[in-house]
């Protein structure tokens, strides 16, 4: 009798262990569900396109909840709506558009690619209810039919002339990764007089930076005195430039990584948008 009790008592915890075995998860791993994010839908062109003729370019930005993004920010400054910036892989060409947003959120544009080759499309979006992040970038690519001959990145030149406008940077820029710097530009028109800038999409000048090779993207703005919503933010630091006198542009530069960067300085002078490219070394 007593032996049986002892045996039963000894076996009871084993039965308990058997119950515990059923709840074992089987392996030391966990399952993570995919996160939802802003993403592109219906990006066109979906196939290689032809150089030299207008190509329809369209897409819809879909919100994390799956609905198309229709409400973009509007207001003072350049941080509004959608910016479509397209560069050829060798950075020999840049296209910067501000296409309209349809009622259904579809964004339609027409782009003419001048040369064959691979292009990177940067879609810089400023949603109305963005939350903690004011803007985000989505990336796509477009292939233009034909043989791609990469053009070498030109060396730094202190003076670039575009459409008769002369852009001269003061001194040789000494730039370091993640350190803010200022580039001083003097812009003169074909008549030799100081250029008069008129705001274009909220800024006197747009400074668009692409890193050669990786095509990392960053941009800052040159703001009119007292302009609101014009400064760019990188890692919590505000970067901006100013222009208080005709013909002078102070461009704020804060590039995240070292390398060779191409700066596309875009201004509107006499109602015409002029883009001056510069090569910058960032140590």
């Amino acid at each position, binding site marked *: 009798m007593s032996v049986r009790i002892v045996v039963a*008592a*000894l076996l*009871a*915890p084993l039965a308990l262990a058997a119950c*515990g075995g059923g709840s074992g998860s089987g392996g030391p791993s966990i399952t993570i569900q995919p*996160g939802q994010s802003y993403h592109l839908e219906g990006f066109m062109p979906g196939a290689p396109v032809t150089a030299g003729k207008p190509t329809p370019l369209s897409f819809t930005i879909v919100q994390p909840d799956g609905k198309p993004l229709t409400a973009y920010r509007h207001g003072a400054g350049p941080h509004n709506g959608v910016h479509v910036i397209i560069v050829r892989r060798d950075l020999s060409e840049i296209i910067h558009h501000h296409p309209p947003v349809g009622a259904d959120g579809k964004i339609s544009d027409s782009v003419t690619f001048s040369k064959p080759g691979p292009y990177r499309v940067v879609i810089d979006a400023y949603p109305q209810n963005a939350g903690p*992040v004011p803007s985000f970038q989505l990336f796509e690519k477009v292939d233009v039919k034909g043989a791609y001959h990469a053009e070498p990145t030109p060396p730094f030149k202190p003076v670039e002339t575009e459409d008769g406008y002369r852009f001269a940077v003061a001194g040789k820029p000494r730039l370091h990764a993640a350190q803010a710097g200022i580039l001083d530009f003097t812009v003169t028109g074909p008549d030799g007089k100081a250029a008069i800038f008129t705001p274009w999409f909220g800024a006197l000048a747009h400074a668009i930076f692409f*890193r050669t090779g990786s095509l990392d993207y960053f941009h800052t703005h040159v703001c009119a005195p007292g302009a609101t919503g014009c400064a760019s933010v990188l890692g919590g630091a505000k970067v901006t430039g100013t222009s208080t006198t005709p013909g002078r542009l102070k461009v704020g530069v804060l590039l*995240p990584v070292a390398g060779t960067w191409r700066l596309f300085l875009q201004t509107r002078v006499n109602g015409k948008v002029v883009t001056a490219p510069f090569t910058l070394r960032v140590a």
Partner: protein
Amino acid sequence: MVLTALAAPGAAWAHAALLKTFPAASAEVNTPPPHVRLTYSEAVEPRFAIVSVTNAAADQQVDGAVRRSATNPDELLVPLKRVPEGWYLVFWRVISVDGHPVRGAFTFKVGPNPGPPPRFVIPSLSETAATPNLLVARWVTFLSIMAAVGLFVLRLAIARPLVSRVSGTRLRAVSIAFWIALGVALVATPVYVLLATSEFALRSVWAIGDLVPLLRVSAFGRGFLDIEIALALFALAAAAALWLDRPERPVRSVAALLALLGALMAAAAALIGPAAAGHAAQTSPR
């Protein structure tokens, strides 16, 4: 003593805390990190640690086993694949040296152009060790240890003098109850440790080959193995004491007294064990 033993595990809060990470939480790095570094307030066991690093699409980026940093014992290194630009969710779960699971999550991004921040889904993973099975096993362990020691003392201090005075009474029933309680304690203690370790390490309790090596690396596991040893010594000493005991004789033999003393010391060790195996006694985690 029993009250102290039961109160002590709840009284101390020495859980591991995540002090520092690389990449820092919510930070952007511009070069793909070769690993994620997690620095805790104590030397958590890498073999218990579960760390997941996923991109927005929930693809796992961890490339190899979590290991301890060679320079800092409180630091875990989680090797990563070469991660492209984007946002990453780090979800971690470690076991404090006191045996309690702790977990957390943070994000970091690889730039310069990480894209829009995703809405990550943080998994729900049990942070408490108090599953019903575990609670039952714990109480069976504690109660059987206490019952065994209690019955031994009862037999020694109350039943034995009674039997010698009242004729026709025997110690057999108390002895059987004592041996049953001790038998249960001897089985329940390792079962409880295995159950708890399987819960902590998120492994099946039947993966004993995986679990046994883990028992020795946590203060929790070591504490309960010590209890088991104390219980075994108690059983040996008690067996000797009961075998040598002659209640009908007026004076105990020296051998019986020595066995009795040994049994009582082992019993005390077994009672102190649960207090020392939990949150308390955190001076030397390794």
